[in-house]
């Protein structure tokens, strides 16, 4: 007993030590519109379009490099007074003249003087992106938020309640292996009512999708034909926000809204056979907006503009003059079997700097170690390490016993 006194004393002292752990809007007949190209105070070109009734729309873009966060915004004025109750729809074209967005509703900047915006992540296609915007006013809307989420294929974290606010709290659904990696789920919106003087419906989505191999498309349930209808604008890795406007002249509201008031919106990946990347759809905000004409006749105005995407001015011959600095390197476990690696690098060429974010999701076969932020090695490797260390200590103790004492 006396011989094991050190062990008993150690067991008494052990709890005294604590190790700190780090946790973790139908186009009406148009009046005459005049457009003039102007430049703003910073030299950026924009189209100044107005009618003989002194209605104006300013469309702003700028110069971008690929993967930058981009924002297209407009200011809507009538007789030099801002219009804050409008529905503005944007069309956006790639440099190769294919359509990127078709009639995507812009968001009104709360409290602003007639500002409406649309966010994008600049794609790696360089060239001139043309855009047109048309606004209808005075339009009001009702807002309905998700009341339920039904996941058919996918691994869910968070709840539908996380989609009620644009607050970086996400309802996260990750692709599930069903043959290929696939994702298929829908939101239900209850008690949606069709207002008087209804003009159309918009489905807004804000969030992130991280699989560059495929897109996620938005569908709405057709209650007349009991089938899903694919909407025009899909979610890509370059779309932090996507909206689809369903004009009443084309879309029958009684087929989109059930007699009980339910609207179903589905999100589904475009390639269910894809098996190269586990895509993760993070929905920050989704709502269904029912637009209605609130005051007199509908007014409209249209305008256009462009933004330009070019490669960073870094000639390869002097690429060594580029200063690269690691700002942020963070590996963490999303769940028990998934590791996310994030790297933020700042690249500077003379006084021009830009940030590049790279993130990668790794499936950990043997589990994810949340403490260390890495995947566990295979069991045999771990046991080999444990046995090896124990054997080494036994040998050392044996040698010590033989030659020292």
């Amino acid at each position, binding site marked *: 007993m006396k011989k094991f006194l050190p062990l008993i*004393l*150690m067991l008494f002292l052990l709890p005294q030590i604590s190790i700190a752990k780090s946790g973790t809007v139908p186009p009406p007949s148009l009046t005459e519109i005049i457009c003039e190209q102007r430049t703003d105070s910073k030299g950026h070109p924009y189209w100044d379009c107005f009618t003989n009734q002194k209605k104006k729309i300013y469309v702003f873009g700028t110069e971008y490099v690929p993967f930058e966060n981009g924002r297209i915004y407009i200011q809507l004025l009538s007789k030099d007074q801002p219009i804050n109750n409008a529905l503005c729809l944007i069309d956006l074209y790639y440099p190769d003249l294919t359509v990127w967005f078709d009639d995507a509703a812009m968001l009104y900047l709360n409290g602003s003087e007639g500002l409406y915006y649309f966010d994008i992540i600049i794609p790696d296609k360089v060239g001139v992106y043309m855009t047109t915007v048309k606004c209808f006013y005075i339009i009001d809307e009702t807002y309905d938020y998700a009341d339920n989420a039904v996941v058919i294929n996918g691994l869910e974290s968070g709840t539908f309640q996380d989609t009620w606010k644009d607050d970086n709290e996400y309802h996260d659904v990750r692709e599930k292996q069903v043959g290929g990696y696939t994702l298929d789920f829908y939101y239900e919106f209850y008690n949606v009512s069709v207002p008087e003087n209804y003009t159309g419906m918009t489905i807004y989505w804000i969030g992130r999708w991280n699989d560059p191999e495929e897109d996620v498309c938005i569908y709405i349930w057709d209650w007349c034909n009991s089938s899903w209808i694919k909407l025009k604008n899909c979610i890509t890795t370059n779309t932090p926000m996507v909206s689809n406007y369903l004009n009443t002249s084309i879309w029958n509201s009684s087929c989109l809204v059930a007699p009980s008031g339910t609207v179903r919106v589905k999100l589904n990946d475009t390639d269910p056979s894809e098996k190269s990347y586990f895509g993760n759809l993070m929905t920050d905000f989704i709502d269904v907006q029912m637009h209605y004409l609130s005051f007199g006749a509908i007014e409209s105005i249209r305008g256009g503009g462009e933004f330009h995407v070019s490669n960073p001015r870094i000639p390869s011959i002097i690429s060594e003059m580029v200063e690269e600095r690691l700002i942020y390197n963070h590996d963490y476990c999303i769940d028990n079997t998934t590791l996310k690696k994030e790297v933020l690098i700042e690249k500077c060429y003379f006084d021009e700097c830009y940030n590049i974010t790279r993130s990668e999701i790794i499936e950990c076969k043997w*589990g994810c170690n949340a403490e*260390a932020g890495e995947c566990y*090695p295979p069991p045999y490797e*771990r046991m080999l390490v444990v046995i090896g260390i124990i054997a080494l200590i036994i040998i050392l103790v044996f040698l010590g016993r033989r030659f020292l004492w």
Partner: protein
Amino acid sequence: MVKGITPLHEALFLLILAVAFFLLAVNLNLYPLEKFILICSVVLIFTIFFASIA
């Protein structure tokens, strides 16, 4: 007992050893159960060692 080394010294030595091996186990990326086995084994080996030289 080795001359000059008291049971308190031995207990402190075992405690330091346990903490050191715990930190090593964290860096080795082991499951909690494996960490436990490693630490217990080391402490046990040294306990037997001290007992044998007493």
